[in-house]
């Protein structure tokens, strides 16, 4: 297949077991050897499929930034302009936390 993307064409090659393990680590998903056994071939099948995008001449095309063109709005710079998304919601924000202590989210110790 003819690819027209220059240097990054290597991207369209298949991925190795080590690369998939690295991607999982970047995505913060713990995978074991069994997971990799199926993820690697599945990944390569999908990458092989999307590879055909390389055929398309896009040299004079801008990437889409908004599917329906519109101006990005800014909200008024007012505290609690919308009470639902403003401040003063500590209890609600923490209500679903797995661990909440003293008004904060609890996490494992990060500094020795």
């Amino acid at each position, binding site marked *: 297949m003819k690819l027209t993307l220059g240097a990054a064409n290597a991207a369209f090659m298949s991925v190795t077991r080590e690369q998939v393990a690295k991607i999982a680590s970047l995505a913060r998903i713990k995978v074991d050897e069994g997971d990799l056994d199926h993820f690697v071939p599945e990944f390569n099948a999908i990458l092989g499929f999307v590879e055909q995008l390389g055929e*398309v001449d896009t040299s004079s095309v801008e990437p889409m930034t908004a*599917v329906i063109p519109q101006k990005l709005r800014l909200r008024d710079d007012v505290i609690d302009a919308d009470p639902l998304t403003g401040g003063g919601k500590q209890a609600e924000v923490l209500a679903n936390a797995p661990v909440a202590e003293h008004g904060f989210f609890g996490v*494992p110790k990060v500094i020795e």
Partner: protein
Amino acid sequence: MTDLTNLGVKAIRDGVAAGDFTAREVAESFNANVAAAAALNAFIVTTPEHALAAADAVDAKRAAGEELGAMAGVPIGMKDLFATRGVQTSAASAILEGFKPEYESTVSQKLWDAGAGMLGKLNLDQFAMGSSNETSHFGNVANPWKANDGGNAVLAPGGSSGGSSAAVAARLAPAATGTDTGGSIRQPAAFTGISGIKPTYGRCSRWGIVAFASSLDQAGPMARSVEDCAVMLGAMAGFDPKDSTSLDAPVPDWAGALSADLRGKKVGIPKEYRMDGTDAEILASWDDGIAWLKDAGAEVVDVSLPHTKYALPAYYIVAPAEASSNLARYDGVRYGLRDLPEGAGLQDMYAATRAAGFGPEVKRRIMLGTYVLSAGFYDAYYTQAMKVRTLIQRDFNEAFEKCDVILAPTTPTAAFPLGDKLDDPLAMYLNDVFSVPASLAGLPAMSVPSRLNAKGLPLGLQLVGKAMDEQMVLNAGLAIEQRAGFDAAPGKWW
């Protein structure tokens, strides 16, 4: 009295308003059907008390002579992707199991404000990622339809809005909310013989909908008639300052302006959708649709969408890329599942939580998205896909210079048995080949049932309109509905 559960949205609303029956009677009838249909597994959580409370409020308003809303007295199913205050909102995932939002999504709030009640939260593919409702943490949804071939295989209800499609087809609800990222309203509607419309991107607020791919996600109604879809869409749509991509445009009276008179309108037939190997019955259904729209007065013209074949590969870069970013929030800190192995640090907690909380398809897409966005690959994959997306939209723009609406099949096949494509993600993805292009271009698109195939399973026809022109899509849908005369219902086995 007629069985109230055979009535649709408008018939229920008008009947309640006229005093033919009470909203409470309607809610009780549907609650009973929901309770008796556990075998379909369409609901993750049922909320009969919510439906009854909303019904009682409508009955009280009517008794007091107050004005009733557009959905007054209509109990609906809510896809479990919409945040509902105090009611578990799981996105059919383990990682959000038990999550009870402190807030209500804009779309669901608008429906309650219009007088609708909630029968329960509907099952779906996990985080709306799937085309068969087999990726749910809460089990598969069964399609109420079965093939007449003597086999007893349980079929997929489509996905990701599979609980919605099954519930509406089985008369567990007169209508349900769906969301559509690459076909998740249209494909399940086609698989179950119902109608469903994805409006123009930005019509319905995304605020409070669990995000999958934000540039594609769009909510819409699923119901058993085009008019019911029009009524419910009117209640769901509208500008919302809390969604930065919400369209600041008035909501037309789609239901009021419905007309199946298509004289002076042109219907485009995209030649690229006539793919090699497409099921002969799908093509025959498409030909029926062409004849019906001609009969309604439309002129049929050939159009070309040259980049159609690249829509699916572009989608499977764009959607996973956005998903990998959106789903980064599930880290075991602020809500949902936490898996903290003995002695683990923060990073190990993230990785363990996400390994335990996400299903295989969700992991696959997050990792694919992480890969295509990673340094060195971003331009080759993501930028290229977004350029192709521009070309796909340009194709539609050029086609709409020649026509007012496009007619195509919704899916390449009828419903397939559960398990059929589970081991081959790519085969599953190909099911969305006809629905994904309109999603990438942000266009309104609808599926309406056309006929039963030789196995007795429903097929759907898809209408794609210009941006903001839901009316044309609904009108053409109505013209097909009136001529298809589709009144088949699944035989009750559940």
